[in-house]
């Protein structure tokens, strides 16, 4: 397998074999996280800049820990404390950071396509940590890694993704990732939260959550983005919770060994009830744990130099 990407911008550009290669690499890195000394010298001397123009705790911490466990030097820049608030453009900010010779920039930005834009203009590697409503590749990879850990395969599974599909980059990356690996994907949510053309991505669309989760292997609940458009798309959170919240009653419709994923942060009592979030089916903290391993794999893979000439 010959996979030596310069950037990781989205799942859309990856093949099934490349995704499996990333997941297999992540499995190797996972072992480090359970050691007493959680550090290997792999990326010694490399500099990683976490450039976050949007709030993030999980993803940023995960990337930072991943970099540190590989012995890279990681630096965090968040929008609130940067020159962005002084009116600098994205390209200027990035060019200034690049002048300090980082090896990898991990970026989150509110504009879809911001990472592609930078990747075309910078010499260093760019990893997309979420751009607008476009993609969030590391999240999809850790979701699939977690599913694979529990179900031992992806092919042939049925996965339901439910919630605010329109504004979720996690959904888009996950649809690409799961369908490429041979899973059947169902998406569910109120009409106002389902964008047109979902069928073209190869998934089935449901507006009834109970129908959508019948006999499925995995359920992935999405967060209602209260800080964004959530308010105007649904009448009330209580009504949403009643029709689209996962609870101990409706989860019985799924397979008995169903697993429940959530990319976090959860709105307990809205899209997921506490009984489910803490119940036996949840693998939510496994996702977080696996996130570090998956991000270690991504940092490692973009750091490979030119392939050696075959002698």
């Amino acid at each position, binding site marked *: 397998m*010959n996979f*030596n990407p310069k950037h990781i911008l989205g799942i859309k550009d990856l093949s099934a074999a490349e995704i499996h290669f990333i997941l*297999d690499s992540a499995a*190797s890195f996972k072992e480090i996280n359970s050691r007493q*000394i959680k550090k*290997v010298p*792999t990326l010694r001397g490399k500099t990683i800049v976490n450039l976050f123009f949007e709030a993030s705790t999980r993803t940023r911490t995960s990337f930072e820990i991943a970099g540190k466990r590989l012995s890279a030097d990681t630096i965090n820049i968040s929008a609130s404390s940067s020159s962005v608030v002084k009116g600098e453009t994205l390209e200027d900010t990035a060019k200034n950071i690049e002048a300090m010779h980082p090896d990898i920039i991990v970026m989150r930005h509110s504009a879809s396509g911001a990472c592609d834009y930078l990747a075309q203009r910078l010499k260093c590697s760019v990893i997309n940590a979420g751009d607008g409503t476009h993609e969030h590749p590391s999240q999809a990879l850790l979701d699939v890694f977690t599913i694979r850990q529990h179900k031992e395969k992806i092919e042939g599974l049925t996965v339901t993704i439910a919630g605010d599909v329109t504004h979720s980059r996690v959904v888009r990356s996950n649809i690409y990732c799961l369908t490429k690996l041979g899973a059947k994907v169902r998406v569910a949510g109120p009409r106002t939260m389902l964008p047109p053309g979902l069928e073209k991505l190869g998934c089935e669309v449901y507006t009834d959550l109970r129908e959508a989760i019948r006999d499925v292997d995995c359920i992935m609940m999405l967060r209602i983005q209260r800080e964004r458009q959530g308010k105007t798309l649904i009448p009330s959170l209580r009504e949403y919770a009643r029709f689209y919240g996962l609870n101990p009653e409706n989860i019985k419709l799924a397979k008995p060994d169903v697993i429940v994923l959530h990319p976090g942060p959860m709105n307990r009592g809205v899209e997921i009830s506490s009984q489910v979030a803490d119940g036996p089916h949840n693998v939510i903290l496994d996702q977080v744990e696996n996130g570090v391993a998956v991000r270690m794999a991504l940092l490692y893979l973009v*750091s490979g*130099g030119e*392939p050696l000439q075959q002698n």
Partner: protein
Amino acid sequence: MVTVAVEILDQDGVNRALTRIAHEIIEKNKGVEDLVVIGIRTGGAYLGEQIQQRINMIESVTVPFGSIDITMYRDDLASRGHLAVGQTDIRFNLDGKRVVLVDDVLFTGRTIRAAMDAVMDLGRPQSIQLAILIDRGHRELPIRPDYVGRNLPTSRNEQIKVDFDEQNIPRAIYLLKG
């Protein structure tokens, strides 16, 4: 150019060398107390398992065996792309243990340097010893093996190939010229 393969050891030869190494390990350590065998993936792991089985048979004990992947510890990652990382599988504590590292071919010594770093990250062994099936010379680091199957002077552009069957049992060793 045509590559010529010369057989260095046949299956019986490999087996005798591994059996002798197993005896030497037991003799040098005056038994098997605190002894653990760790093979360097992938060839060294297969051979390490063979050596462990022989020690178990000779002493009627079970010596712990693990395998280690050293990709993350390499010093040439910048110049080598797309190296797949393998899995380290060591399910026992290394503190105070006598670790016998096993690899198939000893060449520059850089792999062993990386393996020693990897072992040290997993614990604090009492000692690390090195068992090698073929020592082909050309060391670039001050590393020497404690147990050697066969010393084989080679030129730098030659290659050693250890051939394993489907059950990962060593079948023969070849010197590839050209």
